[in-house]
């Protein structure tokens, strides 16, 4: 017990950590190269695994000859799908979106047939990484080729070629949400029948690759009947449960560790075939095994994202009051269903109405199998696709009505006084003010000046035209309320867990089940706990990512960490304070109700000068010489938080775009956005998340596309061809925030990880179209390569769905044989 020298200090409110631009704790190891990436790990006797992958998109495996590979220097074992068939189970799919969804099963390593280029057909285990890699080409696999199914619109036709011959169509499921039937809106067909104006469009939301910078990597160490797996994963907890279910290894015999993880963006939200194989191989050989992918393997075999064809109809009055929205989408599953493959478009289903008060809404989705790598979560997962569709169709409606696109939006969006607002999709939006965010974004952009410049350029017929595009978006974040997930047929809940351990020296360990991979949890969680417990930021250590250290968790995705996981931390801290209060009352010989807790100290009301810090209490219960009769000698606490609703960040993104009508080159002139993500715990981290999201959303609009050729080969299989933008390809971002506290959690946070990525894509495309609408352009297919933009301006249509023969998806490089040569195939947009 201490007596404070100056009673007056107790009166001063302690400075709050929440809201401070704290520099990150994580950086110390990352900027000095003292990192623990999975691939850094070396264990005694460790073997290296390489994967022999299918070069064909669709075929029966008729023979696998591994004899030469087995004789290669340093090779310890070669295993085929046949060797592992009995123990490998199927990669799990946790989201059967409909009761009759067809899941063809997903072997980690192909046994009888291959269904996409890059599918594993054999693995080599060798003494060194290079020996394992060298032996790959010694494995001889014979295939009987089958026709590849690649085009979704063809795949759903009657008597189409089949992706899997043991199921009778290429459709995995048909998911419907009808607001009329759900009781959340009117009759959609009637709304369209009664409408003055109907605008219909077909949008292509192209296939993307998450392209995290750290390639996937896994190390498995067997120890008797126990196994420890280190993996570059977003989801060590989910992975552990799933590996137990898939392989039959008891869950308590498995430990999964996600050490430093170099980005994920949904791409590491997976139970990867290679993780399962590495575990089985380590078990079989009784030796530690490491597998680290090459970048080409990553692009070819790790899951992709997006890939929807969207048919969108909007009904409106002549004055611009929307009457109904009808969405039908084809969603490419790829060849198999991975962890949440079918759930991604279904999650998006509820976001197509955006921020608008549609009286009627119907959504239908077909999940379609094709002979490509499966799709799954990629930053936004379903919500970017929905936002793109609604923000594009609102612009199309404005054009049809001859109205200002902002005016059409303003007429129809939810007003700030209408929150909480239940949408036509049945979601209850929590808080916000779309008007204010929009006005601030326009101010940041310098809107009137740019509109004026646009007019000048148009009048002077400038070859470089200017356009301004909007995206007034919202997203559902904080995944997720477990009961809601259950109602959507998801296989698990969305709670999060936290523990706080008060160490005898007054330091604090915070254990979180939300596993970071670049988001800065260690910093933000320290800020939360510093405020709750009144301990110094520096005295807090955040532990995560190891199922032996943080035994419970649902991990990191869906902008959930702070909203759900951070709240669990706050609730655990509240419990610590509650437990400490009992001990403090005992030691201070006061009534609990007479104690105040502020700045980390308990004081007795009306007795100035008496104080007991929470650190002193931690030491007191460690010694445990003197504590109340009716409590245990510990003030540590656990909490699990399960929200009752999602949170709904929103914002207005405005893009000003220059389009060179002679070359098709587009350049972002200015980009401004104002996001409302609720309470901001660390403005530095929030701004960083917005920047990173913008980069990925803009990249979808301008640069990135996973392109398959007519045989099902991924032609964007390296970073030479898959265009992750560089610093020179992206503009400066002007960002701002409004703050409407989220009512659903005590922090007031809404989530920020996906905002920039969800919002930006349609703003960019709308801007490009705004620049060239007067030239007759109605749509340009993403990504807006110079070639596509030029074709859309000069040849009509949306610029074609493929780059020219011999070029990459970017429309940049050309091979010698085709440079400058137009072939009938190239002019049709076909190729190869």
């Amino acid at each position, binding site marked *: 017990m201490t007596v404070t020298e100056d009673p007056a200090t107790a009166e001063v409110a302690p400075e709050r950590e929440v809201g401070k631009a704290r520099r*990150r704790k994580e950086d110390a190891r990352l900027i*000095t190269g*003292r*990192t623990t990436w999975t691939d850094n790990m070396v264990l005694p006797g460790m073997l290296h695994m390489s994967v022999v992958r299918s070069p064909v998109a669709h075929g029966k495996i008729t023979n696998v000859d591994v004899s030469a590979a087995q004789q290669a220097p340093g090779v310890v074992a070669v295993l085929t799908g046949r060797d592992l068939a009995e123990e490998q189970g199927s990669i799990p799919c946790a989201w059967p979106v409909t009761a009759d969804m067809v899941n063809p099963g997903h072997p980690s390593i192909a046994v009888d047939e291959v269904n996409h280029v890059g599918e594993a057909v054999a693995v080599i285990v060798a003494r060194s990484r290079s020996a394992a890699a060298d032996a790959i080409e010694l494995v001889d696999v014979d295939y009987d080729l089958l026709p590849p199914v690649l085009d979704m619109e063809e795949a759903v036709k009657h008597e189409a070629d089949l992706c899997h011959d043991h199921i009778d169509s290429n459709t995995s499921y048909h998911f419907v949400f009808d607001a009329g039937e759900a009781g959340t809106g009117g009759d959609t067909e009637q709304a369209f029948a009664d409408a003055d104006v109907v605008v219909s469009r077909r949008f292509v939301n192209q296939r993307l690759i998450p392209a995290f910078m750290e390639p996937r990597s896994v190390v498995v160490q067997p120890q008797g009947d126990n196994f420890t797996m280190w993996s570059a994963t977003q989801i060590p907890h989910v992975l552990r449960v799933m590996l137990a279910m898939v392989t039959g290894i008891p869950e308590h015999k498995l430990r999964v560790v996600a050490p430093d993880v170099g980005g994920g963006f949904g791409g590491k939200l997976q139970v990867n075939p290679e993780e399962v194989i590495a575990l089985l191989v380590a078990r079989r050989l009784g030796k530690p095994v490491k597998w680290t992918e090459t*970048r080409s393997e990553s692009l070819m075999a790790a899951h992709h994202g997006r890939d929807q064809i969207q048919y969108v109809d909007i009904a409106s009055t002549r004055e611009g009051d929307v009457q109904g929205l009808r969405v039908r989408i084809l969603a490419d599953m790829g060849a198999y269903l991975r962890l949440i493959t079918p759930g991604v478009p279904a999650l998006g289903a509820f976001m197509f109405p955006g921020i608008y008060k549609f009286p009627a809404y119907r959504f239908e989705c077909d999940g379609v199998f094709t002979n490509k790598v499966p799709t799954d979560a990629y930053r936004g997962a379903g919500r970017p696709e929905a936002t793109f569709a609604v923000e594009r169709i609102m612009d199309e409606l404005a054009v049809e009505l001859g109205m200002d696109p902002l005016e059409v939006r303003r007429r129809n969006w939810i007003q700030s006084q209408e929150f909480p607002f239940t949408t036509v999709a049945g979601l209850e939006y929590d808080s916000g003010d779309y008007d204010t965010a929009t006005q601030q974004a326009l101010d940041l952009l310098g809107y009137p000046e740019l509109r004026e410049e646009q007019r000048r350029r148009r009048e002077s017929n400038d070859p470089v035209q200017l356009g301004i595009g909007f995206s007034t978006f919202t997203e559902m974040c904080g995944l997720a309320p477990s009961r809601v997930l259950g109602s959507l047929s998801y296989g698990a809940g969305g709670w999060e867990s936290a523990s706080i351990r008060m160490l005898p020296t007054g330091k604090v360990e915070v254990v979180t089940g939300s596993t970071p991979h*670049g988001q800065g949890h260690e910093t933000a969680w320290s800020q939360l706990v510093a405020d709750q417990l009144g301990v110094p930021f520096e005295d807090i250590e955040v532990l995560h990512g190891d199922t032996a250290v943080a035994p419970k968790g649902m991990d990191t995705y869906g902008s959930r960490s702070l909203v759900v996981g951070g709240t669990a931390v706050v609730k655990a801290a509240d419990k610590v304070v509650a437990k400490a209060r009992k001990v403090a009352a005992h030691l201070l010989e006061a009534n609990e109700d007479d104690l105040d807790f502020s700045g980390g100290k308990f004081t007795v009301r009306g007795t100035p000068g008496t104080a007991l810090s929470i650190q002193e209490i931690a030491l007191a219960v460690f010694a445990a010489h003197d504590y109340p009769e009716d409590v245990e000698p510990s003030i540590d606490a656990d909490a699990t938080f399960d929200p009752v609703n999602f949170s709904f960040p929103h914002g207005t993104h405005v893009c000003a775009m220059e389009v060179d009508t002679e070359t098709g080159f587009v350049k972002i002139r200015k980009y401004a956005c104002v996001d409302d993500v609720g309470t901001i715990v660390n403005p530095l981290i929030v*701004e960083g998340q917005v920047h990173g999201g913008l980069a990925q959303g803009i990249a979808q609009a301008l640069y990135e596309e996973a392109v398959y050729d007519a045989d099902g080969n991924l032609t964007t299989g390296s970073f030479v061809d898959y265009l992750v933008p*560089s610093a*020179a390809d992206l503009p400066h971002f002007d960002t701002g925030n409004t703050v409407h506290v989220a009512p659903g959690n005590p922090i007031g946070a809404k989530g920020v990880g996906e905002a920039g990525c969800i919002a930006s894509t349609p703003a960019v495309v709308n801007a490009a179209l705004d620049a060239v609408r007067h030239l007759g352009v109605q749509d340009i297919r993403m990504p807006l390569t110079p070639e596509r933009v030029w074709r859309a301006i000069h040849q009509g249509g949306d610029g074609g769905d493929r780059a020219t023969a011999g070029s990459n998806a970017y429309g940049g490089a050309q091979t010698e044989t085709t440079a400058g040569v137009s072939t009938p195939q190239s002019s049709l947009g076909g190729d190869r």
Partner: protein
Amino acid sequence: MTQVSMRVDGVSYTDEVEPRTLLVHHLREALGKVGTVVGCDTSNCGACTVHLDGQAVKSCTVFAVQADGAEVTTIEGIGSQGDLHPVQKAFHEMHGLQCGFCTPGMIMASIDLLKENPNPSETEVREGIEGNLCRCTGYQNIVRAVQQAAGEMSGSSDTLGAQA
């Protein structure tokens, strides 16, 4: 096998390598210099950037034998906790990293850029580091960090606020 000798972060090493061994693999696997990472295999991402005799190179595009007799500096050799290089410090101050996987290469490339151009404009920074990919940050805070470091290294007190 071929014998190579090189000085890496101030320590001399002599090893037998296969002639095909890439410098980055030699650094990581033989010398334990795992601060330098491999991101792409095609020299696009720059995560493996180190300094070879003072020049930034992508160590996945250099054979270990080409570094025979050379001085190699990696992210592990430019500063330490408590004595950070100004570029390391600026990346921390300006939040120029998130997952941190590209960061070693990004820092090594930035040091090289600042050697050639001690006071780069925003555009010059963007073009100067375009050989290094980052998937997390959108680059804006990396650009700020490089400019902040430029200010510090040239002795100017004119630093940019992270919250511009």
